[in-house]
């Protein structure tokens, strides 16, 4: 019911949805969110994601389990990549399944808001001239706080 993976390799949204649907007909709503590497100014060469291997999977499992309990999800998949990625590449996938769309939508947003503020990942942007760590945003904390 809950699948969490933290890996270097890319994921396939279609395959992951199929895995959640396998052998069940009680699902009425499937929501997916995919986060990708964005290059706003045309200068980004790559994005490197560092993480705390021991803690990330555990933290994502806790967030996923909270979402399942809070919205009675039928299934939930969270996949987060690490390593060096190119602009346009996938970073994170969240899929939620539920009988109705409201719960699936809300749960996916909840998972992303918590993931962005508590899962131990750090982004470093590399351009032709330098590399800089991405600063955390206050708006991410505010987005998380609306759920409490």
């Amino acid at each position, binding site marked *: 019911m809950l699948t969490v993976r933290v890996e270097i390799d890319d994921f396939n949204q279609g395959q992951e949805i199929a895995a959640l649907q396998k052998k069940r007909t009680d699902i009425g709503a499937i929501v997916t969110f995919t986060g990708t590497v964005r290059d706003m100014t045309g200068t980004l060469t790559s994005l490197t994601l560092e993480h*705390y291997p021991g*803690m990330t999977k555990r933290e994502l499992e806790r967030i996923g389990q909270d979402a399942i309990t809070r919205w009675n999800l039928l299934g939930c998949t969270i996949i987060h990549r690490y390593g060096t990625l190119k602009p346009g590449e996938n970073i994170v996938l969240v899929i939620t399944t539920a009988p109705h769309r409201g719960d699936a939508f809300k749960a996916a947003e909840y998972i992303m808001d918590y993931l*962005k503020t*508590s*899962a*131990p*990942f750090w982004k470093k942007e590399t351009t032709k001239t330098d590399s800089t760590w*991405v600063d*955390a945003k206050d708006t991410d904390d505010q987005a998380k706080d609306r759920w409490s």
Partner: protein
Amino acid sequence: MKILYFAWMRERIGTGEETLTKPETVHTIQDLITYLSTRGEGYAAAFEVHMLIRAAINEEHATLDSPVTDQDEIAFFPPVTGG
């Protein structure tokens, strides 16, 4: 105790992991920050802005007043930016 550093804290300190014996004066995360900050320029730079320091004890988020023991794995890192 095992201490881990991530992202720009790791870069400023110059290592991602070290093991040290807990000094007698250290009882909490705050005490440990105070102690580590005195260990050299890199440490001082890493711990300079208190607002930007997050900590975990044995892979769970911790606060400044969380107690630490010599058997713990402590991690220090900046605010997270995944997703």
